[in-house]
């Protein structure tokens, strides 16, 4: 059963007046002086580990929406036009290009396959992309396209985990967790790091939004397509808002008596968390209530309000950013075109493109794009070589390719209408302005106001950071106002 939003107001007043223990940020802080130093996170982040904090310098981005195109879209068919491949179609690449690269399914001597779509230029920026895009041209002058992204991993799970955590094995904190750890939350009514997904199952799984060795409260919260959007956010059947409130009241009243008796500040934290849980119970349905949106907006995203879809996730993401959610992952898994790259990519674009573009336009329209960093892309690229294997029923596909691929970002301090980096004539290697995964991570952290080398956490005897021991900020990608801060002094 969902909580009636009006009950929250009642609850607030109730907690504040009658119980006398309204535990907003300030009150909580004062109650917890000297308390809670139970984990080293608590040591490090004062009393409330999710309290909003200042980054190292003022960042342009306050929120991030990461549209993770899991399975890895083909840069060669969508963004990085290589007519040379058409000329070489059917012939193997020279060994000097392959340089011992290992592949998942094909043999390195597989034949070249030319781009499967025509390309054209769009906007004032002259963004060159495939004609299969129907909507992307509309934001040609808003995005910052990077054709020189490279990674270390050529299998899905390790590469996805690498992109999100800076390390290819599960166990390290994800981008979203680092951001929460560094910036805290701006909402107490919703989880500050939310994960949504559509399409097939995600290869990297929960390790992609894990808090790793950071405390588990920095883990991404799944917003689910079935059942409760957030696990246990609905009260058990039959228990209405009033009963839930009365129960919380009783719980907190007794906890308060206990606090007075025992004096353990941890009890105060528990009291605050029950209050927050109750607010969450009402704000989650409120978030999901798309009736508040105009028909025009719904149509722009192309979603059905009650049906989970990538488009609905995009609209929800915008609503979350409005409500102070800090970091949002939307996974769309399904780009792994080992066979029929044309059919696969058309299908995935149909499911995602309109809403992706609508999201950027909508954020811009609402004046939120400057403070919201949108990231679009997969975990690696795809081979210039064809994948065809009769015994596996595969034809006209492409295998995994870590050396070069394309991503784009928009807003949050990145340059608008900008194209960056270059690959060789085969789209195989980066030849100009390489952007390694760790560089991208450093740049994203920079947009949020962090020096990626200084946002660290002591674990197992070492100060860990998102970028391990690598990465540098790609200032070329940043708008002039966002470059400021790179030489800021420690806070």
């Amino acid at each position, binding site marked *: 059963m969902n909580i009636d939003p009006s009950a929250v107001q009642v609850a607030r007043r109730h907690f504040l007046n009658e119980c006398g223990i309204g535990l907003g940020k300030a009150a909580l802080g004062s109650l917890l002086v*000297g308390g809670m*130093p139970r*984990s080293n996170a608590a*040591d*490090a982040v*004062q009393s409330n580990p999710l309290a909003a904090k200042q980054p190292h310098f003022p960042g342009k981005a306050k929120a991030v929406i990461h549209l993770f195109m899991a399975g890895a879209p083909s840069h060669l068919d969508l963004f990085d036009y290589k007519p040379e491949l058409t000329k070489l179609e059917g012939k193997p690449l020279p060994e000097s290009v392959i340089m011992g690269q290992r592949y998942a*399914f094909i*043999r390195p001597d597989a034949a070249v396959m030319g781009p499967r779509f025509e390309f054209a230029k769009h906007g004032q920026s002259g963004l060159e992309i495939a004609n299969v895009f129907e909507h992307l041209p509309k934001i040609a002058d808003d995005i910052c396209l990077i054709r020189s992204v490279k990674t270390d991993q050529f*299998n899905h*799970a*390790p590469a996805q985990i690498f992109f999100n955590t800076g390390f290819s*094995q*599960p166990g390290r904190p994800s981008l979203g967790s680092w951001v929460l750890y560094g910036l805290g939350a701006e909402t107490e009514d919703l*989880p500050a790091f939310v*994960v949504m997904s559509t399409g*097939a*199952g*995600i290869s*990297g*799984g929960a390790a992609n939004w894990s808090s790793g060795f950071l405390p*588990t*409260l920095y883990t991404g919260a*799944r917003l689910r*397509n*079935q059942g409760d959007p957030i*696990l*246990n956010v*609905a009260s*058990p*059947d*039959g*228990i*209405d808002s009033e009963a*839930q409130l*009365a*129960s919380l009241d*009783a*719980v907190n*009243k007794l*906890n308060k008596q*206990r606090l007075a008796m*025992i*004096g*353990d*500040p*941890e009890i105060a934290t*528990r009291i605050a*968390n029950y209050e927050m*849980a109750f607010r*969450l*119970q009402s704000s989650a349905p409120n978030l999901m209530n798309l009736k508040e949106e105009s028909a025009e907006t719904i149509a722009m995203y192309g979603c059905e309000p009650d049906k989970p879809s990538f488009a609905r996730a995009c609209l929800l993401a915008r609503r979350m950013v409005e409500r102070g959610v800090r970091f949002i992952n939307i996974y769309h898994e399904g780009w792994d075109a080992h066979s029929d790259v044309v059919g696969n990519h058309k299908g995935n674009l149909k499911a995602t493109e309109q809403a992706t573009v609508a999201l950027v336009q909508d954020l811009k329209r609402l004046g939120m794009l400057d403070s919201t960093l949108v990231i679009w892309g997969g975990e690696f690229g795809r081979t210039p070589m064809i994948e065809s*294997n009769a*015994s*596996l029923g595969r034809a006209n596909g492409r295998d995994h390719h870590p050396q070069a691929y394309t991503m784009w970002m928009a807003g949050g301090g990145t340059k608008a209408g900008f194209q960056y980096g270059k690959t060789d004539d085969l789209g195989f290697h980066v030849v100009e302005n390489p952007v390694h995964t760790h560089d991208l991570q450093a740049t994203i952290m920079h947009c949020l106001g962090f*020096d990626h080398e*200084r946002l660290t956490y002591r674990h*197992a*005897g*070492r100060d860990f950071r998102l970028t391990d021991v690598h990465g540098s900020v790609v200032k070329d990608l940043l708008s002039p106002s966002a470059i400021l801060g790179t030489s800021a002094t*420690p806070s």
Partner: protein
Amino acid sequence: MQNYRKITGVMLVMLTGFASADDSVSYSRDVRPILSQFCFKCHGPDELTRQGGLRLDHSESAFGPGDSGAIAVVPGSVDKSELVRRIASHEDDVVMPPATSKLTLTDTQKDVLKQWISNGAKYEMHWAFESPKKAEPPTVHDKLWNQNAIDRFAYSKLTELGLTPQHPGTPYEQIRRVYLDLVGLPPNAEAADQFAANPSEAAYEKIVDDLLQSPDYGERWARKWLDLARYADTNGYEKDKARTIWPYRDWVINALQNDMPFDQFTIAQLAGDMLPNPTLDQKIATGFHRNTMLNEEGGIDPLEFRFYAMTDRTATTGTVWLGLTMGCAQCHTHKYDPISHHEYYGMFALLNNADEPELPIPDKNAVAKKADVDRKIEELTFKLADRFPVPMETIWLVPEATNPQSAQGTTIALEANNIVRAQAPAKTTDSFTITLKVPAGSYDRLQLEALSDPALPSKGPGLTEHGNFVLTELTASLNDSPIKLTEASADFAQSGFPANHAIDGVPNTGWAIHGPGPWNVDRKLTVKFEKSLVLDGEQRLSVRLDHNFGSNHVLGKFRISLGKPVDNDVPVEVRRQELLTKRFDEWIQEQSLKVNTWEIANPVSATSTTPLLTILDDKSILATGDFKKADTYVVDFDSLPAGVTGLQLEAIPDERLPKGGPGAVYYEGPIGDFFLSEVTVSQKDQVLKINEASQSYASGGNIAAKCIDGDKQSGWSIDGGQRRRHVAVFKFEKPTDTAGPVSISMLCERWYAPGMGRFRWSYTTQPVGSANDLAMDVAKLLKSPVDRWTSNDRNLVMKAFLDRTPELAEARKEIDGLRDSLIPSLSTLAMRERPSNNPRVTYRYHRGEFLQPRDEVQPHTPLVLSDKTKQPTNRLEFAKWLVSPSNPLTARVTVNRAWEAFFGRGLVRTAQDFGYQGDSPTHPEMLDYLALDFIAKGWSLKKLHKQIVMSQAYRQSSEVRPESLAKDPDNRWLSRGPRVRLDAEVVRDQSLAISGLLSKKRGGPSVFPQQPANVTTEGTYGSLAWTVSSGEDQFRRSLYTFTKRTSPFALTATFDAPSGEACVARRDITNTPMQALSLLNDVTFMQAARELGKSTVNAKGDDHEKLADLFRKILVRPATKDELDALLDYYSHQRTRLKEGQLPANKIATDSTSENLTDADAIQRAAWTLVARVIMNLDEAVTK
């Protein structure tokens, strides 16, 4: 946050009594932590990143000139020390640490360094690398605290710091704490009352002793160990498939329950397989390091992920036994601790020389069973002859079919065995005519077999989308004169479409087969003739099948046969013998044309790109060790004679292979299969051309011919035929010209490692037949004249016949079942030391990267901990070294973890790091005392646990006095009793226990308690249908819950339970709104509340008494008056709402639709359910 650190630092200094930097500055305690954090990265053990030729972790280098000539540390002289000049400098290119490091020393830290130099810059060995020192516990004046060594150390520390201990906890507090800690379950009210009535030392000790003996103890402590072992029930990574390793989990439970000494416990888990004559249990124990993850994602390099598993094993071993962050030295020499890059791989090498098989766990009486089953199979096989099916009524003959015709022009054609097939798409209506060549004889009936086929729509037998058909009329004629049909029957007929509608002469009625259950299967229609047809010679009989129903209800595949009555005068046994003899003779005839006499080729050498190939006594070859995605085997044979016409390859099952072989596939692909991509045979560098291949069995289109097609992506495989012998035959284009040695190259290539496991080659000089799986001795007999067979020979061939002939398929099922019963149904993941002729070489990997192996590394342990001359050389010696007196760490680390389990934090607060970067022990003498005592008492964990829980330090009240909060905020000095949130599993188990739901069933496969199904399906690649266990399995203790790595059980994950992806030495203890939501709304807790609601209604007394009892069930102690008042108030308010129908009582009281409650009952139960829920949500309920 740095500010916070500073404050803590200052506080520490104040509390430990060295307010300013005076002569009490200690290198270990005060100086090294600063040097380690700020300097060692560039001036420490790692020579590759060392700057200026200076290392500060060594006096020799620190006191000598660096590259610049300056001396960093001049003992006694602050002014002459370059270090002091550098840390004091404000110039960018002089100051240390440099600006690029983004580290700055505080003034206090600078003062400490200066004071240390001025005092003479004395270096000391790091405390943890020195052997524990025996210390006498100090005598303290408090009588109560002078009884247990722990208390004597603790009390004197408190006194030293000007703190006083708390008073002892109430009996209720003590008993609840010790129950939850020792067995992970709360005491019941009776046990608590008994203790409260007599809270004597003896009574408490009796409780402790009983708990240590309770089987709940093993389960409680196993869960803690499983965190370290990173135990889970799935493989991890993308596919995250289920694995069976719970026998290891049960081994841990039993070992801890039986208080197996920790040294033996260690040795069994690291090297149980290498002990002399290891028991099954000792082998199961080696599952410890098989809990690493296994990546089965398409196209991964299996050896790369094995490498990652090895780095995990090395790091985990370091964490669990040494308390060292070994993992830091994977990529380079440790930045802080004296562990070189080379030493890391030395320890890696000690663990690296094992294969990783599945260990079958046989039934206890497997040997006896096998003998018994073998005998039964032998018996039953010969008895098969007595079960050869004899027609009792009709003998069926399939006449040759010719000239199938379709009236509407549908493509219709004959296939082998006189089967007729009509091609989709069907016409709306159609009529087929078939002409049969019927030999002489007497016939009284006709049979139509409607045949299903995967190629038909919905598998047929009809051509409609759903596979149905309607046979509206069947007619037959002989020489154009119609045969009168009288009676039709079918093995199945659709309701409204009975068999006789096919011969009723009515054009729009007919026989059809749609029905309940699977109906896309073979069906038979039998039609009797009015009088027998008697044919003197062969005649043509024509059969017409009309399909007038419309909508494509046309038959797709069928066959027609004719029947004659059995001569019932001859006894059945005689007829059976005749028929069997006839079929046997025919079979011998058929087979003798197909089979070859194969001579086993004698292999002289067998090598491969990766696995070890061993030539066995029977001249077959076994592949063991590692496998890659592409491996080539080369086998050289002794001279073969001239005139060899072909070769036979036997793929042979073997219990040493995954799933019994014959392949070696162990991940991602079909386990136990192989994929043979190419076969090349050469003689004197001349390739012998193969132009034909056949096989006895193949999975799908992966036939043997694909081994000779030049395409490395295609090949032969046998999935579905694991544990059986299969044969492929390769025929040469022409017989060999000359005698001479032959070499065979076999490529096994796939996107997973698809090596052949065991195989044997043989040759023939006869014309080559097609492959079959007859044993070679039987084949030889079949090639020899039948009249020379001995009776034994005949028996052998008869057995082969009975084993294969299709008529006996049904009768053989019993035998098949017996064979299957011998397959061990249970196995677990284990380690197996490699044979001495196939050692695995370990390298130092540059930057810790799999693709950058450099110099070869011999097994050894870090020299800071061990004697250079006495190094372990293998896993077993290494395990023994870990628990030997010469290792200073294992006992301390183990004792510290135990301490942490009871007090929330260890005496060394960084339980996973005893190195330079870790915290120093709060009570160093106590830690050493306990470590030495632990060893002296035979490594007994139970004795250690008892020692801790008997202490006053542990039994104090956990009330936080202001003095204690101010001076000892996180209770590191033990100024109060531990007050810690319960472990995730205990939170759940407690709710099951107090509500009476808990099942005490122990051990066995993991179970699936209730949670929303989409937790393990939505958005996860390796999705798992979470089918909730039935009966008591829903309510087992949480350590039996199935742990899926990529989507762990939601309830326990919310309370910080680990996912099993990495070794966890210390769980975070968080306090979050998600935990509140879970306790309030999760189905498990609601279920428990309902049970409590129900039992409270039935309890004695008035509401007040009921409430008091309910409160005690959950929190053990009696409630205060304020608490009772608040809850009664809540209760009556909710009851009013329930009575007035504002709340649906039934819904709250029960989740069962079958339970019929009266309104009054429902209201009472609902009200108490709500009260129980409130109490279960109290902070105290989830805190010990």
